[in-house]
């Protein structure tokens, strides 16, 4: 009779490792404060310029920010600054 098998969990045993909950959607309308984060890939600014134009047309405030390098996560200070001053952030991926 096979009693089954006990194995040890190879993960970090954190729920975050399997996905994080989505933030609530922004309310409809104008006036949201939106950060545009340039990750420092070539031509990311071209893409963000266009996004900025579209957002402003719709009556939103835009704050332009940038990571020091696309290869590393945004520094904690930058993340906090965005979280404090903005309702949402759009990260530009470009090449």
């Amino acid at each position, binding site marked *: *009779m096979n009693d*089954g098998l006990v*194995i*040890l969990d*190879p993960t*970090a045993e954190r729920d975050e490792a399997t996905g994080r909950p989505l933030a609530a959607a922004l309310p409809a309308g104008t006036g949201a404060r939106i950060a545009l984060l340039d990750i420092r890939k070539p031509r990311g600014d071209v893409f963000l310029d266009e996004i900025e134009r579209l957002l402003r047309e719709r009556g939103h405030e835009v704050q332009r920010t940038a990571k020091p390098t696309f290869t*590393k996560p945004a520094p904690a200070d930058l993340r906090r600054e965005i979280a404090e001053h903005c309702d949402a952030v759009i990260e530009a991926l470009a090449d």
Partner: protein
Amino acid sequence: MEVIALVKHDCETCATLAPALEAAAIAGAPVRMVSQSNEAETRAFAERVGLTTVPELDEGLALSERLDPEAVPAVVLLDGDEEQDRVEGLHRARLEALFAAAGATLPRDGLPEIKPGCTSITQEPEVAARLAAKRARAAGRIRARELDLGALEDPFEALHQRGLTDGLPVVPPTPERVVALLEHTRRDPQDLVGVVPPYGGEATVEKVAINAVMAGCAGPELPIVLAAVEAACREAFALHGLIATTHPAGPLVIVSGPYADEAGMNARGNALGQGNRANSTIGRALQLVARNVGGGRPGVEDRAAHGQPGKVGAAFAERLEDSPFDGLAQDRGVPADETGITLVAAEAPRLLLDQLAREPEGLCASLATALESIAHPKQRLAWDGLVVLGPEHGRIFREAGWDRARVRDRLFALTTSPAGDIVRGAGGSPEGVEERFVSDPDMPVAKFAAPDRILLAYAGGDAGLFSMVYGSWAAGEIGSAPQSASVEPWR
């Protein structure tokens, strides 16, 4: 005073002694016969040797584990918890003395003077492993959550279904296997090795060992895997970006020093290929840590456009016994008498063939062509290069007396091109340096940021005028910098 007599059902010496033990108990001796076998086996044993009562069972082998005999019958005289005397096997005179000390008599009728015992069940490898795992859990050495796979589940399929593999079967990480693997490091299993991107999972020695078991490590590879995980979690290695990038690079572990051989690694023929357990499992263990502890999954967090076969795991050892240079890790700061690793964010390797090379200058010219093509021949300053010299190429440098610095300097010089050749549009290809940066088309522009951004290692089989060349991921401060580390702190 109490006498404990441990027996097991398939031991003929136990069968010889058991009737005398029971007779002593009936006559009032403070003796408990305790069986290491299961209930059915113990019942059959009692019937076979003619006992009137079935010996009590050693539940969970707790008593056997505490008394820890090598052989049974094991007759132990206890005063409270304190052991006063012990006889393992049948030695009539010593048993009589032990019973006398307990104020009792052992009937000697039919007992041989001496008869060797049998191995205690606690010494059998499977049982010993189970008990070691139980002890490790009780002592807090092992703290990982236990996952129960059902009796009807195939463990290999279950591990796939739970998203814990790299697509190949993994060895189920049972507590027994993990505890056995942990014997290969002196480190406490709860020591933190690193915080693993992208989700910041904490890789303890235990968690690394679990993934190393899954990768197929035999044991001695563990200190190398631990050193690699520590190096991978350093900020300068930028593992978060390496996992998340669309670029195909993955971590490559190069081991330099005598412990590579002790761990069973291959530095010779097919060192970069399949067929050697340590080479195949060290890199795989690191990648499973990134997946399971860090949470980086291909196609989800890992956005590689193509990836490459080395992302299953890549590791090889340097062939230092006839290398023209010192070890790569030692060149990068690991003490000369220690084994070290160098961790590189590397593409798949490519062959550089020069079967006509006989002198260092010409060989450098050939190697430079491969180095210059990393990412794109017109890409500059953003990439590192790694050359794994094969022995027939390495010999050319050794015999000419060229050391690492001289080879590196020469390769650096030979990978410099006139700005006009690498400007956007030159040669018909749009990639390259922006025209506004090119004031003089003859101005030389280096491929690499500095000579030491060209790493040199030495490995491979005796025959073949070949070397292998790896490109990096985005390199240096803006990307991933190679990391070296000693293996010694993890042994």
